[in-house]
């Protein structure tokens, strides 16, 4: 075991190497300072951690299982594959871990209202859920493109009492929702906590979200030791902003024998330009409040991105990932929309598990890596969410005629 991979940004003014910081209007600085103070204060308070863990256990169903995917392993004829089943928690994805943690922080700060950005809607759903549970007013900002492709999540957010505000600027996806959430926050600082959903934006968000999500990796350490008596050889997770992957990776960073792979959205293929592969095509910059790699044009403006998975369809990468990439601790690759659909079908058929489109990116890499490894090797894949929410997209992509028929009938019924 070696150290040096783990950074405490509270001691580095919010930087992970050259990445991170606070590239925000001066008027946000007091609010970020307040959040940092409240968080450091909560860290010293044992009852805060106890309450967090209690809610994760009793409300969200943690620990989530680490499942040995025996059928998939046999099929791929290589390394043993374990799936961390984050989709089995409350709201169906890992997003709820962070939402619970930040809701408890907001309560400590005396805030009455939660706002959040969302891409796939999973983080919006998690935020709306904790708002309902803890009694916060709630507003979710979501790009119009994403609202159109993730209607089921919008429906549930609204049922949970949240106001879902469509964002119609830019690409109308996650980055535009982040901008709008920040703008709304600037206008409502006194009453509102901005519940950032990923390890991005200005310090201290990346470290707070990472710490709340680290529960994933901590559980895996215990679970894999029980199952295999040792640590895994590989960890694989998808990377949008990077919260589920950092949650899995972080507790393992100092175990040098554990290799880690982050999988970005390759969209229609890197060469088409329609993707969200920041490590393949991103440049250093500062957009949306932090310094990291971003997909940008020659003048430094953010470029349009694409992915079949709304949760990965984003211009920037969390600063800690940019750092881990720069020191070579984690390697990053990408999976195309087409490969993702194949991986999704394979997991459903072999294991009876329906993964989210986002998480299916990690499976693509697992399918590539596992057969090349010996049967004594162990891979852990983070299935960060379940795929129920994707039924419209997947059914359309698979050109399922009966589904189309079903939709037509539903419309007819609704029109009556």
């Amino acid at each position: 075991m070696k150290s040096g991979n783990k950074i405490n940004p509270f001691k580095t003014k919010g930087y992970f190497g050259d990445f991170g910081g606070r590239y925000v209007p001066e008027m946000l600085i007091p609010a970020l300072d307040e959040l940092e103070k409240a968080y450091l204060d909560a860290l010293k308070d044992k009852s805060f951690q106890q309450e967090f863990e209690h809610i994760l256990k009793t409300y969200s169903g943690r620990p989530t299982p680490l499942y040995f995917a025996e059928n998939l392993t046999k099929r791929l004829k290589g390394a043993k594959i374990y799936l961390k089943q984050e989709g089995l928690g409350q709201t169906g994805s890992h997003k709820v871990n962070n939402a619970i943690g930040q809701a408890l922080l907001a309560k400590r700060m005396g805030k009455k209202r939660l706002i959040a950005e969302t891409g796939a809607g999973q983080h919006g759903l998690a935020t709306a859920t904790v708002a309902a549970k803890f009694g916060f007013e709630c507003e979710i900002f979501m790009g119009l493109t994403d609202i159109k492709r993730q209607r089921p999540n919008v429906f549930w957010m609204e049922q949970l009492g949240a106001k879902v505000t469509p964002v119609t600027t830019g690409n109308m996806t996650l980055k535009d929702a982040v901008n709008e959430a920040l703008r709304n926050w600037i206008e409502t600082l006194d009453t509102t906590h901005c519940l950032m959903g990923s390890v991005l934006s200005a310090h201290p968000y990346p470290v707070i979200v990472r710490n709340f999500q680290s529960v994933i990796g901590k559980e895996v350490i215990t679970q894999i030791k029980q199952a295999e008596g040792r640590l895994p050889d590989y960890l694989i997770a998808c990377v949008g902003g990077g919260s589920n992957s950092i949650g899995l990776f972080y507790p393992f960073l100092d175990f040098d024998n554990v290799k880690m792979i982050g999988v970005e959205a390759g969209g229609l293929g890197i060469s088409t330009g329609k993707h969200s592969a920041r490590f393949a095509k991103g440049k250093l910059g500062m957009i949306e409040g932090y310094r990291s790699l971003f997909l940008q044009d020659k003048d430094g403006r953010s470029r349009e991105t694409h992915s079949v998975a709304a949760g990965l369809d984003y211009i920037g990468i969390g600063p800690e990932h940019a750092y881990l990439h720069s020191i070579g601790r984690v390697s990053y690759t990408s999976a195309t929309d087409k490969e993702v659909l194949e991986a999704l079908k394979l997991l459903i058929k072999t294991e009876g598990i329906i993964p989210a489109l986002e998480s299916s990116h990690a499976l693509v890499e697992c399918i590539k890596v596992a057969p090349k490894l010996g049967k004594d090797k162990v891979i852990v894949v983070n299935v960060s969410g379940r795929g129920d929410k994707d039924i419209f997209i997947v059914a359309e992509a698979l050109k399922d005629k009966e589904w189309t028929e079903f939709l037509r009938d539903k419309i007819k019924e609704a029109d009556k």
Partner: protein
Amino acid sequence: MSNSINNNKALMTHIVLGYPNFEANKKLIKVMADAGTDYIEMQIPFSDPIADGPTIVNANQKALISGTSLSDCIKFAGEMAAAFKEINFLFMTYYNIIFSTGISKFINDVKKKNLYGLIVPDIPFDEDKEGFFQECRNNSINPVYVFSPGTTDERLKKIGSVASGFVYCTSRVGITGAGKDPHQKLNSYITNAKKIVNLPVAVGFGIDNAAKAKKIAEFADIIVIGSKVLNIVDEAGRNFQKPAFKFLSDIKKSLS
């Protein structure tokens, strides 16, 4: 170049370059000059303008869709600075545009076009790894720092040391946009801030009529009008010159 910061308070206005097009920008700048505008912020459109409200966000987006490039903006700015020598022109934009070009190259380009300064709201002095503020000052380009009521005295001290020309305080904690009331203790906040930064203070955000402008000019040195002019231009369409002139000259009169 004029510098009217004495008894008469100065007026700064704002345009988004390329919105709706450079021809209209030129006409609007002429109107602003005729109305006695002292400073004009020319915003280089950006994809993610997080400090801006709906009016300016919309203008940024349309300017980008119509293909406004950075080099177009720099060229246009040079033409305006040459044509309206009585006005101090500034670029307003977001830091990634400058960083992406390269700090030295960008500032050198701005210097060649005889601009007065730069307003970049998303580069707090703590994050200035590239030496942006220093490089501006070394080249006699004024870095105008934006802050708001709520910025602490300790930070104001640093702001006073990195900024030059003047500083820009928002009238309230919020994003740009017309029609909202200023911070309740704005007067005493600005009076205190002025002593600490030791520079003239511009106040903007939400100033949309002459009465408001006059009231804020009691303690501010420069009044900034942003979204309201854009609103007038958007509403009036092609015949924006007359209403825009009337609005701005009323404001200017209220400041003397």
